[in-house]
């Protein structure tokens, strides 16, 4: 295939990023031009929508070809496989609704144009990260993505809490990045190449256990693990996810930590000979993440922090699926993890956006700067039926109740555990199922609170939710229900992703 379209999925949002910024800056000091906000929003949305075209084309090309697509610029190799497409799909999917949602949410904020520029850049960089096939460039994409996300976390630069979150995120991520870079150096030293496929060949050919590569693997796991928020590397996450603007919280929870996970898998796959060790470690971290995330969320009263902790436990489910896939070669595990990754994007994206919508109309519009707590939402359903339904469905889906998406992807992961026939893995599945029950202990009371008869004062005085915020909520809510009733609807995406994971680890 001579014509490669897929680099356009990266190029369109990346190229649109400076354009949006420049358009936003032109005449920013002239008050009569304050209509530019609509121009900025419109351009950002257009760029997101345009990016879908190369995505759809490259997916059909990939499906027709049945193998990964590759393209080389100078010496930089890019490659699209099932995993890249999964990452691109979640990034574009959530990115598009977040841009739409942010319209009213960010309107009039200082630096609104920077927000969209960084968001578009982040989208492009994450898609690029998914396509990188050269270990060093891969790290570059990863770092660039991280830089764009630091700026977005610390977006409210006048608020100390937001800056504190940004600094913690920056420092901890930087520690991780250093480890990753060390890992890259060790791999390069041992194999003499940075091309991932060649490294795979070289490490598979090694007969004795190369201690440098083992160390490199540990660096990859911990380095990327900071972004994935493995416990105990997670300490930046509750602050960052709760202090960022809600659209960004959705992106961080629904896409960025998953991008870290995909990056970790790619890096570790170059050392696929040790896949059982990596699988075992992922299972261990998965179990800790599930329990820790749930217990921390259990006593949380700030909604965004609670959702942030719940992300820890959902990462745990994905790790469980991946760990099962790597230790026992079950496709159901890899595919289930990919499915859960996709569903988590929708569910957690929706949860953060719905909470964001409430924050916007209950607090921000009133000029109140404080976190939204559970009690604020008492009786919200009577005034905001749509947003309350959206939040309820998101939470119940996260808790794994049918007929919602989260139930089906968790089920698929559980199937893998039992198909492996390994007693330990079955035990872990039971542990995961009990964790789901535990998580209902904090999701259900919020839903209950939303449908109270007595309305809280905050809700009583709340403003109307704008249409541009309602549309994303409706779209995501609908997807959760439809996928829950028809789980194979997403297998065009999750199956290649699962197969790719098994393939790159040589299973």
């Amino acid at each position, binding site marked *: 295939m001579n014509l490669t379209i897929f680099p356009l999925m990266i190029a369109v949002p990346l190229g649109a990023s400076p354009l949006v910024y420049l358009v936003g800056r032109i005449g920013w000091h002239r008050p009569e031009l304050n209509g530019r906000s609509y121009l900025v929003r419109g351009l950002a949305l257009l760029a997101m929508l345009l990016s879908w075209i190369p995505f759809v084309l490259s997916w059909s090309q990939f499906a027709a070809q049945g193998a990964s697509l590759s393209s080389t610029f100078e010496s930089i190799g890019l490659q699209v496989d099932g995993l890249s497409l999964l990452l691109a799909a979640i990034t574009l999917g959530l990115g598009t609704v977040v841009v739409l949602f942010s319209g009213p949410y960010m309107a009039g904020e200082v630096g609104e144009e920077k927000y969209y520029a960084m968001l578009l850049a982040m989208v492009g960089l994450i898609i690029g990260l998914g396509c990188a096939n050269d270990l060093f460039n891969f790290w570059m994409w990863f770092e660039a993505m991280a830089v764009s996300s630091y700026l977005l976390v610390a977006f409210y630069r006048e608020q100390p809490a937001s800056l504190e979150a940004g600094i913690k995120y920056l420092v901890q991520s930087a520690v991780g990045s250093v480890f990753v870079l060390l890992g890259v150096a060790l791999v390069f030293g041992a194999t003499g190449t940075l091309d991932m496929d060649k490294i795979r060949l070289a490490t598979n050919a090694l007969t004795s256990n190369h201690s440098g590569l083992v160390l490199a693997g540990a660096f990859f796991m*911990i380095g990327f*693990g900071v972004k994935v928020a493995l416990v105990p590397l997670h300490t930046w996450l509750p602050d960052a996810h709760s202090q960022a603007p809600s659209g960004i919280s959705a992106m961080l929870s629904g896409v960025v930590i998953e991008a870290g996970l995909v990056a970790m898998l790619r890096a570790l796959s170059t050392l696929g000979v040790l896949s059982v060790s990596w699988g075992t470690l992922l299972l261990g971290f998965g179990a800790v993440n599930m329990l820790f995330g749930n*217990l921390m969320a259990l006593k949380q009263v700030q909604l965004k922090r609670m959702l942030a902790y719940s992300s820890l436990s959902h990462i745990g489910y994905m790790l469980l699926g991946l760990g099962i896939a790597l230790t026992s070669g079950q496709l159901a595990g890899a595919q289930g993890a990919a499915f859960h990754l996709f569903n988590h994007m929708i569910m957690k994206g929706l949860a953060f956006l719905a909470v964001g919508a409430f924050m916007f109309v209950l607090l921000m519009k009133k000029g109140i700067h404080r976190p939204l707590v559970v009690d604020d939402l008492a009786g919200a359903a009577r005034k905001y039926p749509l947003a309350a339904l959206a939040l309820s469905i998101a939470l119940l889906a996260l808790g794994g109740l049918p007929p919602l998406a989260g*139930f089906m992807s968790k089920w698929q992961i559980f199937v893998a555990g039992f198909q492996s026939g390994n007693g330990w893995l079955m035990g872990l599945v039971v542990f995961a199922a009990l964790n789901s029950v535990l998580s209902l*202990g904090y999701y259900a009371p919020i839903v209950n609170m939303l449908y*109270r*008869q007595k309305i809280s004062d905050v809700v009583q005085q709340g403003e109307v939710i704008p249409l541009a915020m309602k549309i994303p909520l409706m779209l995501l809510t609908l997807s959760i229900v439809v996928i829950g009733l028809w789980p194979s609807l997403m297998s065009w995406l999750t199956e290649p992703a699962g197969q790719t994971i098994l393939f790159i680890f040589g299973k």
Partner: protein
Amino acid sequence: MTAILIGLVIGIPWLGAIILWRTSDEKPRLQHTLAVAFSIAAGFASLALIFFSSAETVIDIRMGAFFGSLTFIPDGLAVSLTAIACVIGSLAVVFSVDYMKGEAQLSRYYTFVLLFIGAMAGLVLSGSLLFMFFFWEITALCSYALISFYNDDPKAVAGGIKALIITQVGGVGLLVGALITYAALGTYQVSALLEKAGTMPANLLALIAFGFLIAAAAKSAQFPFHTWLPDAMEAPTPISALIHAATMVNAGVYLLARFYPAFVQVPGWALSVTIVGLVSALITAFMALTATDLKRALAYSTVSQLGYMVYAIGVGGFFASQFHLLSHAVFKALLFLAAGSVIHATGTRDMRRMGGLGKQMPFVRNVFILGALALAGLPILNGFWSKELILETGLANGPLWAYIGMLLGAGMTAFYTLRMTWLVFFGEAREALRVHDAGSAMKTSLGLLAAGTLTTWLLAGSFSRLFQETLPFHSIHELSTLDLAKEIFSIPATYVALMVVCLGLGVFWMVRKQATEEKETRFDILSRESFGFDWLNRQITSVIFRFASTLQKTQTGKLNWNVVGILSALLMVLIFLLWSA
């Protein structure tokens, strides 16, 4: 046609649920009308489905890899339980027209009632374990939402979450069983498990069998999960009648009955089922002896009667258990709804404040007495036949000690039933309560259920024929109603049981002064704490919450410690890698 009817019994209530969700609470008349229309339509569809029952799979939709097929099998067991769910469901909805008059948020109430009715039908009709679990969880969600319906009341909120968590913990047993079945047989089909159980490795089959027993015990509020049902009585009374007496709590019994032929070969399973049933029946009957809250007393009695059904399955009385399930669904719904009329009229659930209400509410008194006699097991009401059948099977096939225990339970049942009736409707009025008679919608439901209590036992013959024809794995022999009646009246066990029942009634009559007094006895503490199991529940919750509080200290907010976390994780990973290499 069968496929269409199955679509209708699940689809009509669910469509109704969606429509009611969209109705405005400003228009209660419309909401009542819609709910009644949808539930009655579902009721008729479910009755029609009985005539189309078969052992064949009628709907088969591929759900993609790892999710198997969504199938429905309208066999005798499924269609009879569907009919119970839909018919009693529609009666509960009709009752609600009066009971819920003037309540806020009716759209939420009716949405979940209708969602529940559809899910319950789906649960019993499902031919796939995955979708059985799917509907199982939806019924749990509806139960939660309706227990916590009055969600400004902290007791209702606490009762709801308790029910949700306990049934979900048990549900893990069903999940594990379904997953093992899929891993071993490559399918989720119920018929495959029943057919190939003998060829499965014994340890896996035992895991499935005991997993299902845990799930069943949690759903049917059996020992040691019996603590949630009394607290679920915070729900509006029609919900207690529908979900927590007549339908959802039967799902556990259904599960055991459905898979009995597969699990009976597992060593110790049948005995465990017998013991679970026996212990549940006895301890909750004991708790009902001194209960003062009308609805809680009925809830204890529900657990106790479910214990009878579970016991029946343990001793191999598949037909007896399902027969009692039918009788119990009808008479307990009647008792709950009658109690609902009383509560609606008096505004209290405390039996100590009632008394002498029979004069003001003669219709309710009469139907309540009818239900109470059926519960106590007196001829010729439906509860008598099914309970006698259970005891007879227990004596013939089960251990003698268990039979004696169940006999004792029958005596206690008679005692507390009479006590309940006496406290509410007879004697002197203890307080001057302002009472109004039941409304016409209430009376319609009560009247129909009372008629059912008098007559459903006549269906025993057709019931057994239905089972024989459509349940290939359960060896059921057709037994006409007349033969059943002859059999029951010809064996001495029946007279023994009747004597024990009369003894229970007689003992109450002698001690009625003490038994209706307000002062607390030392047994009350045992009852209030559910024999220590409520204490256990609280301990587990508090340990989890204490642990969570301790963990919160790990979020120091200090960057240095955060980096220490990263470094120590690196160290742990390295140690693991060295150790595994």
